[in-house]
């Protein structure tokens, strides 16, 4: 991505698809009413994903019937998906807005480490564990703010700005923690975040809340519409009176806060803060967002697709473990799924995007 990429990102994907009433074989096919109905719904737009997810569950059911189809197992999948899920929802916003954030994993690590330093934990002991929670959120937001300012006002390409943050945030996390695993001593913190509410882990509920909030924010608010506008055509957005700089900063702060939330969730899951937390999350999140149907070039994004994308990857590793298959086999399957999902996505997207 270099600076002249912006106009290109803009003009394209949405536009080119909406263009032309030329007759092509595609047109004939899309006239079929069932297909039209299907593709008009949001499930239709995510049809490729739903199919892939269904297939995966089917494989799970066929290979390990009792163990896979089990409430406990589904809760485990959801719990494991929750951390990367929250990160991916933040990432959906940034990518939809035409940016990218490579620093999510590092921000998560830094937030977790900062929130579990001896000083913070002692402070939390004296007052309330909410101190740890707010520390994580503030650190996440702060890192996001730095990213946003660099991108919006410093004119640094998002790829580079967040790459720099990736390196320095993880480095700072290592310095803060002396590369040691910091164990959380506050019992109240563990009691609250590791609990179940009527059988549903608190982490899963947090993921659901973030997903719903994300969906509303993206699809039902001015903020969401501006995000599409900025990502679709930054010049047009500016001419339409949107303060694109401020909006870009807000997007990066938003993903930073998501990383802070994810850090809290990961701290609860592992009972620790560590500079190794969130390693490679940037790739997992980008993969989930992209197979979910969000355009990497911005202008189009879907929260539902992202959630499905995250669930597919988490279920995949669950099904593979059920069958005692190796990590390497999992990696291959992951790659294949990314390609298949994107290919299916493109087919359905092409059909459904016509008016």
């Amino acid at each position, binding site marked *: *991505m270099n600076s002249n990429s912006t106009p290109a990102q803009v003009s394209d994907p949405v536009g080119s698809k909406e263009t032309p009433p030329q007759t092509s074989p595609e047109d004939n096919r899309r006239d079929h009413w069932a297909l039209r109905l299907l593709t008009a719904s949001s499930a239709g737009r995510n049809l490729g994903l739903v199919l892939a997810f269904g297939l995966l569950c089917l494989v799970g059911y066929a290979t*390990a019937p009792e163990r896979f189809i089990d409430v406990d197992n589904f809760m485990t999948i959801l*719990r494991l998906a929750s951390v990367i899920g929250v990160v991916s929802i933040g990432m959906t916003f940034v990518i939809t807005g035409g940016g*990218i954030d*490579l620093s999510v994993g590092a921000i998560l690590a830094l937030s977790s480490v900062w929130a579990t330093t001896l000083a913070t934990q002692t402070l939390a002991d004296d007052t309330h564990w909410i101190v740890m929670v707010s520390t994580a959120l503030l650190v996440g937001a702060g890192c996001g703010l730095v990213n946003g300012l660099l991108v919006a006002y410093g004119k640094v390409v998002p790829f580079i700005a967040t790459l720099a943050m990736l390196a320095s945030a993880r480095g700072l996390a290592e310095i803060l923690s002396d*590369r040691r695993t910091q164990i959380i001593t506050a019992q109240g913190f563990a009691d609250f975040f590791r609990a179940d509410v009527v059988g549903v882990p608190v982490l899963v509920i947090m993921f659901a809340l973030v997903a719903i909030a994300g969906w509303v924010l993206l699809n039902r608010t001015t903020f969401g519409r501006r995000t599409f506008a900025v990502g679709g055509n930054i010049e047009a957005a500016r001419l339409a009176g949107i303060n694109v700089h401020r909006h870009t900063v807000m997007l990066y702060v938003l993903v930073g806060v998501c990383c802070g939330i994810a850090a809290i969730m990961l701290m609860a*899951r*592992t009972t620790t803060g560590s500079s190794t937390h969130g390693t490679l999350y940037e790739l997992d999140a980008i993969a989930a967002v992209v197979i979910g149907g969000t355009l990497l*070039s911005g202008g189009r994004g879907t929260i539902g697709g992202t959630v499905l994308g995250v669930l597919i990857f988490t279920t995949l590793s669950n099904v593979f*473990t059920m069958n005692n298959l190796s990590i390497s086999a999992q990696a291959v399957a992951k790659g294949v799924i990314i390609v298949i999902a994107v290919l299916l996505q493109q087919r359905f997207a092409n059909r459904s995007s016509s008016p």
Partner: protein
Amino acid sequence: MSDRTLPLRRRLLMSTAAMLTIGVVAAGCTSNTPEAVNDETSGNQNAASGSNDETGETVTIGFSAPAADHGWMAQITAAAKAEAEKFEDVELVVAEGTNDVSVQISQVETFINDQVDAIVLLPFDGAALTPVALKAMESGIPVINVDREFESPFAARATVLGDNYGMGVSAGTYICEQIGDNKDAVVAEIAGIDSLPLTQDRSQGFADALSDCGLDVDNRVAAEFTVESGERAASNLLQAAPQIDAIWNHDDDQGVGVMAAIENSGRDEFFVVGGAGSRNVMEAIQSGDSLIQATVVYPATQGADGIRLARLVAQDKALTDLVEVEVPRKIVLYAPVVTEENVEQFLPTAFQS
């Protein structure tokens, strides 16, 4: 423009991101990976003491090890320094820990130029440090190689190695003893980074020891030596195996996550054996109320052993408990099982994860 250029740019972006992250990962692995572990030998009452300990001619020993980026490696350097302190006749020169091979090479070259009496070297990469170690040996400075072996036998006067295969054997043998005659027992294994030779050695030793008593590994998952990966792998493992009798977890660093997952599942029908030997795991063993019953040690005191050997070699002494006139060429350390009974012996030298 261009349905055509966009995908290209996208692809470039993705692949660059991938490459960058792979770089980061590779760095992360190496730092976290190496046989994370523990230590035992030095500092306990059994450790060497005898006529060799009497002050002799003063020797200067150069010490170089990778950066102290995880608990085990930090302990390596700390234990080496502590050991040198015990001897009035040892002057230890410690080079700044580094994961940069070229920096480490130049550190060894400095030792050669300064004409130290011996060098203790835990190379970041055994192969890459072989030439400079050879150079030191050729110039008459004995090199004691620790933990990661050089490629040439001529590059070191003596070598001290941990035993990854032996860790697997110790863990497997202990589980065999605990389980007894139950041939249907379910044994699970949580490995570290699967692509590393050390992980493969550990797993091989474990499988061999289990098959010796008619057991096998029923469920195997691999984590990445990090707390988070341990939690993830263990969560899935617990779902995959509804009933388990014993779990061996290769690494106590990732073990914190493994135990968090077990606690979350509320399961307690099995016992857990750790690996490496971190302080918090030993304390859990000592408390007696944890599912962790034992851990197998990968000594973090091998750097300290290196210091002792270097001193002996430089002073022309022998290992007094052996008949031989000269210090042996290679010492492979044992991987002992730490249980509630003997944990006190090992705690003083345990590393902080």
